[in-house]
């Protein structure tokens, strides 16, 4: 209660505020939005200042899901830390796994066999589709369109089934190891995967049929929450948020890792940096991910799936490494410092959700309360990753 009564807007001069808002614009109300609110996507809490429906100030409060993950990394050997990464961005575990094992591989100096690289790429792109499907579902339901939620979950279910066949888990995959993969693809997996990529473009058309040219959908998203490119770069925003503002920056193209250098795909960008452009960018990314999976399945080489690696992985003393990849939400990076023991001395995560969330006060200022939920949706945050 005490914290609630303390205004986070202490820098606002009450005298000018009185003359400016109280009389000219009407009385402002402080509104506590979350952490228990249907559209804060977890446990985000926002302290809002609203003038009627219009938001004059927004102050995100995070930490409700803080689990000390970065400290946990220090307590375990390198190869035991992969499950912790599952629980950060829990709707995109595969890309988290890859960012972590990639950092460890770079630190220890492992060469990954080609088959493992291709399978990892397939897993990451399936994860990208499933994460974007969840984003689309929640974004649409925030804006009031109920049906896309069920359609996207229909296809997401197929992806989760593929994951389940591969590693036994559906969300917290733990599907990669430093040096490669825990095991090879099960028999018949590639056929099921091909079946999925065959039906997915039609499903994508179905979602777009409900939303893309819908007048109400466009009214709710076009011109809402415009993020100018320079502001996006200043905030360090990455991923579809950045590309929606028209900046061509995708780590898969800019610094190809795994098999991305060997497949063809396009990186869609937006023009106006509004919510609608970010929607279009993500929709196109799903189609491109589908294309990448198809190419990877065609080129999938035979061979081992795990590199030759030491029984106990140790980093050199004072070795430090940063390794970032393109997760569905942006650049996820791991910065690991070694101290000669099997455990990392320090492991810092660069979570895209956390960085992208910074832009929310900027995005929401002056928009209406109804736009706020659309903008929380368009930043595509996962609080497990924000709070860690």
């Amino acid at each position, binding site marked *: 209660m005490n914290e609630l009564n303390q205004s986070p807007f202490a820098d606002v001069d009450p005298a000018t505020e009185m003359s400016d808002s109280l009389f000219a614009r009407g009385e402002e*109300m402080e*509104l506590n939005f979350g952490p228990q*609110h*249907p*559209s804060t996507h977890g446990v985000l809490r926002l302290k809002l200042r609203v003038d009627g*429906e219009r938001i004059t100030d927004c102050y995100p409060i995070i930490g409700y899901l803080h689990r000390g993950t970065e400290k946990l990394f220090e307590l375990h050997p390198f190869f035991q830390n992969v499950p912790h990464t599952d629980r950060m961005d829990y709707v995109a575990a595969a890309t988290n796994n890859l960012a972590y094992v990639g950092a460890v591989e770079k630190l220890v100096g492992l060469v990954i066999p080609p088959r493992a690289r291709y399978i990892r790429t397939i897993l990451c792109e399936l994860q990208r589709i499933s994460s974007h499907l969840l984003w689309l579902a929640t974004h*649409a*339901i*925030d*804006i*009031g*369109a*109920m*049906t896309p*939620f*069920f*359609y996207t979950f*229909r296809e997401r279910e197929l992806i989760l089934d593929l994951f389940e066949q591969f590693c036994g888990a559906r969300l917290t995959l733990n599907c990669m190891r430093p040096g490669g993969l825990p095991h090879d693809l099960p028999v018949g997996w590639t056929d099921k995967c091909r079946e999925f990529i065959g039906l997915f473009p039609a499903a994508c058309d179905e979602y777009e049929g*409900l*939303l893309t040219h*819908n007048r*109400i*959908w466009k*009214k*709710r998203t076009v011109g809402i929450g415009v993020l100018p490119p320079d502001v996006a770069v200043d905030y360090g925003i990455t991923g579809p948020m950045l590309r929606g503002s028209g900046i061509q920056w995708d780590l898969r193209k800019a610094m190809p890792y795994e098999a991305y250098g060997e497949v063809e795909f396009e990186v869609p960008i937006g023009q106006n940096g509004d919510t609608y452009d970010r929607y279009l960018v993500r929709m196109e990314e799903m189609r491109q991910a589908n294309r990448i999976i198809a190419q990877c399945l065609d080129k999938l080489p035979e061979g081992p799936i795990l590199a030759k690696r030491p029984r106990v992985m140790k980093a050199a003393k004072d070795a430090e490494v940063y390794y970032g990849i393109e997760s569905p939400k942006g650049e996820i990076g791991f910065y690991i410092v070694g101290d000669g023991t099997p455990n990392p001395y320090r492991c810092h995560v660069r979570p895209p959700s956390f960085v992208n969330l910074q832009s929310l006060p900027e995005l929401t200022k002056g928009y*209406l*309360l*109804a*736009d*706020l*939920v659309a903008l929380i949706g368009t930043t595509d945050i996962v609080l497990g990753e924000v709070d860690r």
Partner: protein
Amino acid sequence: MDAIQQAVGDPLFYGVVSPALKILVLLFLGVLPLITYLVLAERKILGYMQARVGPNRVGPWGILQPIADVMKLLVKGDNIPNQAVKWAFILAPCLVVAPAFIIFAVIPIGPPAGELGPLDWFVTDVNAGILFVIAMATIGVYGLIIGGWSSNNKFSLMGGLRSAAQMISYEVPQGLSLVAPLILYGTMSLVGMVQAQAAMSWQVRLITLVPMVISFFIYLVAGVAESNRNPFDLPEAESELVAGFHTEYSGMRFALFFLGEYANMIVISAVATTVFLGGWLPPVAALGFIPGPIWFALKVFVFLFAYIWFRGTFPRYRFDQLMDLGWKWLIPLALGNLALTAVIKLWLLYR
């Protein structure tokens, strides 16, 4: 047979017993079961639209689900928040439900006495019927505002304010869209309106087709907004205001708001059927062997299905866009349409 004729002719029976009986039958055998099963129908239809099956556990195809829901709501704890203004908090749900039910008294679900059985197929025929409908529908908004304000919750308050602005704004185009048929039919009685439609020749129907279709669509849009349904469900916008004006309500009080919303849907469908689609009349004379009330019910169900269809398809409007649509598009359109109808009536039909 003579005894029945005599009883029907008795003023005591005609004036008191018959309306009272009809109200009981209409409410407890008509409207209330219809509302409960409308909820089931909505969940089923939405389910099939959304690649799932909807309720299917209670009874075959879930047909006992509404009964289970009502039982649950009846026995649930009825919580009044400490901070709430108690009398207003209790009054609000009644203000939503009562007017919605009262409107059913003037809606003709079938022809007057003599055409189909010895009794009128409506409770009463008020000579200013359409005004009565609009007046009663207006009272419902008080329930929403009072409910939102008395809950002493910021989200509820915003829901209440939104509903006030929305319903008042949309009453204007709704009322205006009803004036055009009123000019054309020359009566305000709902029974009279249906009879006027029966009496129209095909030439008159053709001449008045355009203004009537425009009027019909304005009424439909305004009606969806008036009953706070998707895409105009801003007062209870779940993703923005948690549950809007009824966030703090639980148990049977919440159920009353719910009943009110669905009763309003049926009322608006029934009025649209009566005013624009010929009420109990069959669409072509050859189908006249099917009794009027069945035609009436079928037409109402088409509207109710459309309501559910909208919910499965559209995103939600934003508050200011909703106001724009009402004031900048529907009201000028309704006014223009009104002028057009008047011109047609004066120059073409009276000549």
